[in-house]
């Protein structure tokens, strides 16, 4: 059974109606359970659960501290290239936007890696626009080889690959894979992904699984919240994480909740704004449903909100984010993929965490090869 089978089972159910009809008593029942199931999760995402955010938050906090401690793992993203062969309506890197594209040379990768590692961060996330032509497997493998000298954990956020491709990356030392489905709603998926290989919904949906088959240890999934109604989107994201965790029990599964940032054309009718309150509810519901799944907090959120979200279940966050290619060593800054709301440096994030009695973890993995 693949995740598509689970997805299909729920897709045709009238989730909107089910969510609307969930009673407060049902929410209380879900809140009381030690091992909630997917129906409880749905209840926690319902409109009725909005009256229970405080008790949900208390339980979420308690579960997080017990499972992960007062510790948050930090990583820094590094953009390798902004070439892309897709047309996603919400992204500045889309193929039809004309600007001077840039791809780091190996010397630049070395320089950026060195600059980032000076902050003592040992986890790096390398990202590219999704262009297999400009950032092929060879290029990625060579970048990993270079970065391995400076980092103990390397995660990739790149175009979806075959199991074989992922295996080659794992052999080089990649241990994490981040891939967002963007939206689980197939119709909307096709409406926002206008052109390019990304239009293949199924190939992307199964990418986390191919990665895990290939030996990836840490998988991070998520939806781009705002493209479709969030309750359903959060439901499918949680189901996906749950499916992966049950099938690949040794993997560390993470969820991110990136929200759509402003972009041209956002008045389109499939844009569904997600409020801070909505965001809180989905984080809490996910934590209660999946106590051992990591929650990744994105730099897209404003500093103050990031601080308030900390105790609600966050276990990992980025620090020192620059979303333009070549942004760390201070040369040749390219175009930014999206607007980053939190520009604080690693040191600032560290002291912020300490202030809130959280230990910043700069190293949480040891490469074994």
């Amino acid at each position, binding site marked *: 059974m693949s995740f598509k089978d689970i997805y299909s089972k729920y897709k045709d159910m009238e989730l909107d109606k089910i969510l609307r009809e969930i009673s407060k008593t049902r929410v209380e029942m879900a809140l009381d359970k030690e091992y909630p199931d997917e129906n409880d999760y749905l209840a926690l995402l319902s409109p009725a659960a909005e009256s229970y955010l405080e008790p949900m938050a208390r339980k979420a906090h308690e579960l997080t*501290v017990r499972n992960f*401690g007062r*510790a948050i793992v930090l990583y820094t993203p590094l953009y390798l290239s902004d070439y892309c062969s897709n047309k996603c309506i919400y992204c500045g890197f889309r193929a039809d936007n004309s600007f001077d594209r840039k791809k780091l040379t190996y010397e630049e990768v070395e320089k950026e890696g060195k600059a980032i590692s000076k902050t003592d961060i040992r986890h790096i996330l390398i990202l590219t626009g999704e262009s297999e032509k400009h950032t092929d497997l060879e290029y990625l493998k060579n970048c990993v080889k270079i970065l391995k000298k400076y980092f103990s954990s390397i995660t990739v956020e790149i175009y979806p690959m075959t199991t074989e491709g992922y295996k080659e990356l794992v052999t080089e030392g990649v241990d994490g894979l981040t891939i967002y489905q963007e939206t689980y709603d197939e119709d909307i998926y096709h409406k926002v992904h206008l052109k390019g290989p990304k239009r293949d919904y199924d190939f992307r949906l199964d990418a986390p699984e191919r990665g895990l088959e290939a030996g990836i240890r840490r998988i991070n999934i998520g939806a781009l919240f705002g493209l479709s109604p969030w309750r359903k989107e959060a439901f499918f994201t949680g189901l996906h994480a749950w499916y992966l965790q049950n099938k690949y*029990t040794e993997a560390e599964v993470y969820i991110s909740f990136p929200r759509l940032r402003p972009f041209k054309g956002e008045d389109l009718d499939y844009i569904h704004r997600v409020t801070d309150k909505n965001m809180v509810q989905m984080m809490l519901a996910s934590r209660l449903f999946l106590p051992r799944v990591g929650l990744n907090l994105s730099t897209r959120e404003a500093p103050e909100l990031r601080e308030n979200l900390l105790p609600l279940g966050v276990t990992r966050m980025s620090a020192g984010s620059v979303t333009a290619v070549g942004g760390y060593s201070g040369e040749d800054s390219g175009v930014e993929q999206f607007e980053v709301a939190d520009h604080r440096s690693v040191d600032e994030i560290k002291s912020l965490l300490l202030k809130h*009695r*959280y*230990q910043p973890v700069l190293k*949480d993995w*040891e490469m*074994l090869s």
Partner: protein
Amino acid sequence: MDTFKIGGKELKSRLIVGTGKYPRKSMISEVIKSSGTEVITLALRRVDINSEDENILNYIDDSCVLMPNTSGATTADEAVKIARIAKAAGCGDWVKIEVIKDNKFLLPDNYETLKASETLVKEGFKVFPYVTPELAVAKELENVGVEAVMPLGAPIGTNKGLETRELIKILISEINLPIIVDAGIGRPSQAAEAMELGCEAVMVNTAIATSQDPPLMADAFGRGVEAGRKAFLAKNPQVKDKAEASSPLTGFLSED
């Protein structure tokens, strides 16, 4: 005096403390001081010997024995690799084997743990395997030559206490090695209970690290463990569960 002989050392404290989950790294040194612990576990995956500020070893007193663990290992091979890296990094030759394939409940894989233990004992490590309390595996581990068996009291981080009490009692009675309860102990009173049963030591992390005042809680655990040990000694270590009733029930029978 009642000393704790283990892994070729003689220790005063029977509390082993973990280093994860604290609100800041530097708190470890306060916890060590207030609890009196002499053995510290640490996850090798989190040790960064190349960083001044981040290197956790800088916060651990030199007089403490380090017990690096293999957290992150999902197979025996990985555990063996991690143990070797730890030794090469200067963490000594004690190693706590943790092989966990199940990230949902964090329950140990006894089979892989046994395999890793066998290899590492042969390489000269002092091996402390973390296991689900299971007599057959504990006996095998004893044959292999580990230093102690570390059964879980309850799943890691649950703070539920000695949920596996009956199985741990069996290990204490059947295994000729120190039994050290590891994981699940949420309160000093539960630590005391484990010691009263006859465990040789208790390992605590979550309950100390995530409390409001870790150094104070560490102190409480140190005392809980000590109280439990004294109670055990006072009862007489020879007398186990089947303690005799105070006045004999068959006293009415005459000699002949």
